[in-house]
């Protein structure tokens, strides 16, 4: 499998704090790659760098062999990398459907003139946005709540809505930041199936940050482990399970 994303020696400093130190990681096309590590290990920072929210202090990111350094989040998205957020960031006072429709923004074109004159092209585009948004809500299993405001959905449904919104952007890579947080075990199973389906049916490459190690072991093909901003291990779940540095990091023996 070809490398889709290459992170080369990424470092990120906030003041004197090294959130990430020389992290090099390759993401292969079509894999489900897990990112685990204790709190504050730099997982979300890595996502933020990947999606253009932060610029790395040093290092390089390539997506399909072109550098993404200096790209704004909306440009990164246009390249095909979409994400969800650790602390859900939906458009709270918009309906579930509208949330997903916003996701189509980058792939549609109507401007002020189109909106005001409502030309045939704009009407067709709007109709297509609506159809697609409904499909995606159906796909993640919350089509019954299309008209509900995002903030009134249950926690698990909000997480799924965030995924639907991200899918609406036609991504090639989907970065999920703690998608199972706050879900019960039943919801976690559905989520696991949903992530598998995204990879198998939509051909997505999926990156997942999650604390639930059991879920990660059964979901991911490869796992990368961060600790104190450093990549301490990467490999198959089986390899990770037996890696002494990972065990030390998780059991606290390796605290420096």
């Amino acid at each position, binding site marked *: 499998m070809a490398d889709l994303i290459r992170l080369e020696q990424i470092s990120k400093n906030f003041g004197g704090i090294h959130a990430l130190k020389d992290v090099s990681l390759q993401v292969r096309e079509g894999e489900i790659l897990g990112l685990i590590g204790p709190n504050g290990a730099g997982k979300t920072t890595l996502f933020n760098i990947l999606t253009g929210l932060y610029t790395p202090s040093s290092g390089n990111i390539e997506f399909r062999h072109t550098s993404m350094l200096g790209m704004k*989040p909306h440009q990164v998205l246009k390249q095909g990398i979409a994400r969800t957020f650790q602390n859900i960031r939906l458009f709270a006072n918009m309906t579930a459907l509208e949330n997903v429709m*916003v996701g189509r923004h980058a792939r549609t074109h109507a401007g002020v003139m189109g*909106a005001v004159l409502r030309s045939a092209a704009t009407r067709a585009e709007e109709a297509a946005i609506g159809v697609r948004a409904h499909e995606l809500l159906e796909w993640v299993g919350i089509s019954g709540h299309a008209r*509900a405001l995002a903030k009134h959905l249950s926690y698990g449904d909000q997480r799924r809505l965030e995924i639907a919104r991200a899918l609406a952007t036609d991504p090639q890579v989907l970065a999920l930041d703690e998608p199972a947080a706050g879900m019960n075990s039943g919801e976690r199973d559905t989520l696991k199936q949903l992530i598998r389906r995204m990879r198998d049916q939509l051909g997505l490459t999926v990156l997942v940050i999650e604390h639930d190690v059991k879920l990660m072991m059964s979901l991911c093909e490869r796992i990368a482990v961060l600790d104190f901003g450093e990549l301490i291990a990467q490999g198959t779940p089986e390899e990770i399970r037996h890696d002494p540095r990972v065990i030390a990091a998780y059991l606290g023996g390796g605290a420096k």
Partner: protein
Amino acid sequence: MLRSKRRAWLTFIALGVMLAVLPFVVDFGLGRSWVRIMDLALLYVMLALGLNIVVGYAGLLDLGYIAFYAVGAYCYALLSSPQFGLHLPFWAVLPIGAAVAGLFGVLLGAPTLRLRGDYLAIVTLGFGEIIRIFLNNLNAPVNITNGPQGINQIDPVSLMGVSLGKSHELFGISLSSPHQYYYLFLVLTLLVVFVSMRLQNSRIGRAWAAIREDEVAAEAMGINVRNIKLLAFAMGATFGGLAGGLFAGFQGFISPESFNLMESIMILCMIVLGGMGNIPGVILGALLLTVLPEALRYTGDMQRAWLGHVVVDPSDLRMLLFGMALILVMLFRPAGLLPSRQRKRELVAEDEIAAQEQASVYDARH
């Protein structure tokens, strides 16, 4: 289906006829000065709808909005008055004024892109004042704006050779100048309403709503936040400039005094009072806040008639009632008199949830 369509048409026609005869009714019942007040009210409706795009749709708190009204008004005044001896036709001046105001919207919006909430409000407030102070001082070394004296003898609006500054006979009906302005303003107000409505339910409108809700998420969903914000500033400013140009032609005289901070706040109040983000609400707010203060002028005469002298100055009373109205609205209808469907939906849904929780508490107890 067919019946509801017919009903919609009937409502539409009835509303049209009502709006068409309204100035005559008002003229007959309350006098010519009230027709002028209606003209001004329509200008404020345009202004409020323009600010509504910036504040209501995109959620950018702009306290310097009146600056764009000023830019539009001064553009009109400079291009068709004896100030420079230019007398360009109305159909050219009005779009120029609106376009220049739109450009100013982008220019003043650009430095504020990284600011949010209170900080944005403070900076836009400053910009608004800067424009006014510029207009006040651009009479030296080269006299452009005539400074605090303002610009006089601005050409009245003239359409196809018909000057709206004079009375005209039409089908045997005498139309005074305020009547004619009323119809012009009405048509343009309807245009602004139409554009606002279309924008709200569009890809652009959704993008504005998204950045209002969560800028970071909006950007991560592929919205070019910078451009979309500038577009909101530009659209709002264009409407402001349009209203400004009409104001200049209508009044025949403008000075920097008309464009002070109080006016910006007034327009913001119209939106807040009426229902931010909701077009009928904004229109209602604008109409109320222009008509009520004028109506309060009568209280001076009433006080003189009943009490022999004026106890409370009507203009003081205006501010008092105004403040009270705002407090009452904030307390009892926090989303405005006519809240947007979205906000109403929020409130209803919350009530439902509250009811459910009440019910479960009840179940638990019994």
